[in-house]
């Protein structure tokens, strides 16, 4: 439904920034090289052909046995052109960072905090990267596949962390 976005990306980025493009079940997607994440995001928002001014969702997927381990997934929509695209960025476990897109779409603030909280992906440049759903003293990143579902972690109060008392 939005092949034009992929064509535009393929035309505008010829230096290997777009690693792969594809479509499945009517969803168009593109895999972006990690270092160029913000550039591609800004391009998609500002380019008059694509005009992706609305970011629906940002999350991460734990692929577990593949390299890179995590995929940060960003869903974009254009309120003008009414088309959508999904962007992937592969984030390795060892260097679990990615540029933030908060300055491109401010609404992604909490979504990036959630991806950090549940998967451990740090977004460089995020103004307020702290846990959002789990309590501050929580240790670990629960949505990772190697975090056991039945593991109990009773709250142990620690002071000095952002958001806690004292």
């Amino acid at each position: 439904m939005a092949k034009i976005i992929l064509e535009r990306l393929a035309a505008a980025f010829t230096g290997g920034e777009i690693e792969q493009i594809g479509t499945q079940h009517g969803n168009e997607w593109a895999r972006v090289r990690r270092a160029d994440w913000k550039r591609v995001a800004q391009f998609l928002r500002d380019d008059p052909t694509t005009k992706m001014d609305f970011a629906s969702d940002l999350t991460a997927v734990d692929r577990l046995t593949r390299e890179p381990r995590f995929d940060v997934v960003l869903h974009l929509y254009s309120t003008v052109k009414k088309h959508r695209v999904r962007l992937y960025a592969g984030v390795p476990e060892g260097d679990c960072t990615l540029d933030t897109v908060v300055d491109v779409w401010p609404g992604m603030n909490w979504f990036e905090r959630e991806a950090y909280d549940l998967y451990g992906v740090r977004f460089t440049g995020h103004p307020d990267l702290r846990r959002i759903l789990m309590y501050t003293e929580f240790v670990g990143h629960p949505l990772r596949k190697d975090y056991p579902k039945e593991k109990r972690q009773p709250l142990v109060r620690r002071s000095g962390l952002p958001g806690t008392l004292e």
Partner: protein
Amino acid sequence: MSDEPTTLKMVEGAPVPMGPGTESDLSLPALPAGTEMVNVIIDGRAHQVAKGANLLEACNSAGANVPYFCYHPGLSSPAVCRQCLVDVKGQPKPVPSCYTPCTDKMEVTTASPRVLDIRRQMLEFTLLNHPIDCPICDKAGECSLQQHYFDWDAKFARNDGVKVEKAKAVDIGKHIVLDQERCILCSRCIRVCAEVAKQPELTMAMRGDHEVLTTAPGRRLDNPYSLNTVDVCPVGALTSKDFRFASRVWELTSTPSVCPGCSTGCNIEVHTGKEEVKRLVPRPNDKVNKYWMCDEGRFTYKRTQTDRLGVPFVDGVPTEWDAALDQAKARLQSVLDKNPGAVGVVFSAQSTNEDLYVAAQLAFDHLGLKRAYLAGRDQGWHDDILVSADRNPNTAGAIAIGGGRLKSLIDLSQDLKKGELKALLVIGEDGVLAGDAGSAALPLQGLEALVVLAWCRDSLVDSAHVALPLAAWTEVDGTFTNKQGFVQRVRPAAPAAGDSLPTWEVLGHLGRRLGLAKDFTSARSVFLEAKQKLAYMKDADWGKTSLPVHLRFANSRG
């Protein structure tokens, strides 16, 4: 940054292919050098396969998911079930792919309308007289019939539901129960008995829709490999008495490991449910055990669940770890100070290489003990199929680490009788020294210090001054060396019983108290150190860290 624009091809599908057969670390055994390869076209795509390779295997490696019942890679192929029929260009009738060797330029269609219809019809025939036993059948969840029906035949029954009645829950052997109604007559079990165990005890009787599986006249299914028939049976016709109704398959987790029953070291999977081992099944290894294991090996897990030593004991009183270790140190030290030549250490051929390595460091390098012995289970019967006479999993490792310094239990017995030993450190006891296996118990009364590290409670543990509990082979990380010299990994499948710890860890604590200034942090770190120092381990591989596989995500096995 390349200079020319990279042309991106549009992928039809997901960015990261998932699903069966897409694991990136799927490693198939390499073909021997010089194998002639031929081109086979499967569903329009060309594949290179070895000449004469089995067409069914070739199709399934290409992802075609051709169903089959009677074929098994470890057995001969009779082509009786007709489930694997595929179309080959140039052949008027569909061919059974399990019986067809690959030839050059063969064109195969695995999913044409005719093939799909035939597949569905075969399943309909197979299901015609199949009893509605799924809720009570052990195989449910790993049943090939369920899986193939769901994949290839999703139609409701056309018959009136009246089925042929045959015998159910028949005790045909020491370990096996037969349900004749569930049997789909694939004859895999007959071939296992005839070809693998070399004792043809099963056969088909009667004909038509009254054909049944039964034992040969005058015989029972008693060969020492009988439980392999339960593994290969695609349905729940043959079930193991041990595992019957013990657990549902999807509640089990599978951990790869090695059987400790004898020095063959068959590769196995340990299936655990609710933190208890429920059964052992063989894991394919072309060089060691192919696809099979013996019945005795399947019950080795029971020893880890009975009479376990759960807490340290000092003079028969349960004690905390620290206090017990201090006592052990004190008792051994008092003899070491007076008479170091009278201190003996007993290694066990049931310990892992890591345990033995740390033991050797402590006993030989640090304490400089001269009297060392090797204990192991007694020899048993053997055959030329899988069972070795040596009933210990790591004799090769023990002898290599011992470096020729280990004497036998007979020498130990003599030294004890002569009164030359005043202290004994037993590393790994499981009824051997206690004489539970039938051989005479050792004369241990004259010892001033008897420190026993044991997995199970027996008379030796009860009479020891200090007894320290060990985690069993199903609970530790480590490696065993089999008689062929392969170093094979065991993995923890269940939590350690009581407060027990792995042997290398206990020895580390004891060694620190005895002055050994070394830290052993994990089994893997011990392995890596041993790999560098010991010649026979230089090619050993620790293997990858992996999550235990929940069997509920698996389909049928075999």
